[in-house]
């Protein structure tokens, strides 16, 4: 609905957009400035500090006993990248099966898939914990990574919707030429599904990066901590909270998702829109 606006309309629109945008990003701008302030200054309403405490960053990075944040970043990356790769590979295989093949009870299973998107996580939480506990997987990364091998219902759905828009004639001609199902999946469908795969990768990485709950219940020793747990420890172990350092470390921890967003904005927006519109 792009209408031609007259000058007054344009002015009003810009004014509103600016006002709302300021409201939305003000906390983040404040966050940035506060990360450079001394603890006393944080209580002040000023946006930016009078003296820029650049030390907040290296100090915060090294503040925790025994491990610097380098260690925790590596942990988070290890877990997240592995889980994301598993998610995307598995989801693409499953999506191909649902989108392109016919088999008995297919619609039934697909309905189940959709319903699991709406399943509250609490209801599988305790038995899963009990199961992983009995495998001796607690305090390892296995409970965080192995479930990703099932693909993730949301990602499967996202990719299925996308594959449906690829013309079947391509499959047909490949089949006539004697291509196997896996061949069609690998050589024909997957290259064309790249946008959806990128979207799934982005979502999986960002949601995994922020995940606090699973690491909270499964990881007990500090050497396994991911970034959210390290931040939490920061709050707990500092008797007088060094807010400047804490805010600095917190701000750094959200930069990977933000960076990814800026690099892949189009895929982001398309990914969300696809699930919302066609879902």
């Amino acid at each position: 609905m792009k209408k031609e606006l007259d000058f007054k309309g344009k002015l009003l629109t810009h004014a509103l957009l600016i006002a709302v945008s300021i409201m939305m990003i003000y906390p983040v701008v404040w966050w940035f400035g506060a990360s450079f302030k001394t603890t006393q200054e944080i209580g002040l309403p000023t946006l930016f500090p009078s003296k820029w405490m650049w030390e907040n960053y290296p100090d915060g990075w090294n503040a925790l006993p025994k491990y610097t944040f380098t260690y925790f970043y590596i942990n988070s990356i290890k877990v997240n990248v592995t889980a994301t790769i598993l998610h995307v590979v598995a989801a693409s295989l499953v999506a191909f099966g649902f989108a392109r093949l016919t088999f008995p009870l297919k619609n039934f299973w697909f309905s189940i898939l959709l319903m699991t998107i709406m399943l509250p996580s609490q209801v599988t939480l305790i038995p899963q914990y009990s199961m992983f506990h009995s495998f001796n997987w607690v305090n390892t990364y296995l409970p965080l990574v192995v479930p990703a091998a099932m693909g993730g219902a949301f990602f499967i759905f996202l990719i299925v919707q996308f594959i449906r828009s690829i013309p079947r004639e391509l499959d047909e001609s490949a089949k006539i030429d004697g291509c196997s199902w896996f061949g069609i999946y690998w050589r024909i469908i997957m290259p064309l599904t790249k946008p959806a795969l990128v979207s799934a990768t982005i979502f999986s990485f960002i949601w995994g990066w922020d995940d606090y709950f699973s690491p909270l219940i499964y990881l007990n020793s500090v050497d396994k901590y991911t970034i959210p747990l390290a931040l939490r420890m920061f709050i707990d172990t500092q008797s007088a909270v060094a807010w400047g350092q804490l805010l600095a470390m917190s701000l750094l921890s959200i930069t990977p998702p933000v960076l990814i967003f800026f690099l892949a904005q189009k895929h982001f927006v398309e990914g969300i829109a696809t699930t919302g519109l066609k879902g």
Partner: protein
Amino acid sequence: MNNQTAAANAPAAATSKPKSSLRHSLSRWNAPFAGYLFIAPWLIGFLVLQLWPIIQSFYLSFTEYSLLDPPRWIGTKNFESIAHDRLFFNSLKVTFTYVLTSVPLKLASALAAAMLLNRAVRGIAFYRTAMYLPSLIGGSLAVAVLWKNIFGIDGFINKLVILFGVMPKNWIGTPETALWTLVVLTCWQFGSAMIIFLAGLKSIPNELYEASSVDGASKPRQFFMITLPMLSPVILFNLIMGIINSFQMFTSAFIITNGGPINSTEVYALFLYKKAFGSLEMGYASALAWILLVIVGIATLFNFIASKYWVFYESETGAGK
């Protein structure tokens, strides 16, 4: 349950080719062995990590289970205890308040922002990024930390409200206001819903607005007669997902207020977590989990049934539902 899956599948099917003619040629795609092989990762995962746990959790809700010892059958005792648990009803009250205020507010903000962003002005990408940013940084612990700071007694929110003549207070430490800080946090992150609405708005054909303008329709009238009905499937989707997700909200409540002060922000997910991992009452927590499942199921079912009355589906043939 079949209706909701049909409703979920119908728009999806409507966007691909009509199925009837494909069915005849689908025999070529009939591949039972390959089909199951491809979906095996999900199917195995579903059976082992979802279906079996759901059944087990139902069983556990009738037991006393501390993880260290085997579960001990106690019949309906858990449910009886829950019925007399003041904290349980408190968490229900807190959670329902949270869901019923944050979801409508968030969706309304998202829609308003999307409509604003749907105008043709320069620099629109910048504004869109600015409005999506809060949603992007997400339900992370880092944001919770930020929120805890700015709504505290020394936070900048207090500096702001003074300008409007409101008494500064520790918003997080005051029982009456603590939950609202969480609601505001949720609404601040309307970005994903906004993007979906924006995509929906762009798919409304311009001719509808042009034709109604010619007939002399005012802007509000166009909004209610064209925009809302055409967007209604998208609104339904956002509404259902919003409700389901907000019932499970945990990290913000845990980090910002930890359920306090005086349990005024102890949402259901937090209450359940404390029972399961705090006091190791896993049987009790399983009962709580199943109650949540029923509540969310009823809410979703209600939404699907009610949707027949206000959601307008425009299928390929143009016949409304």
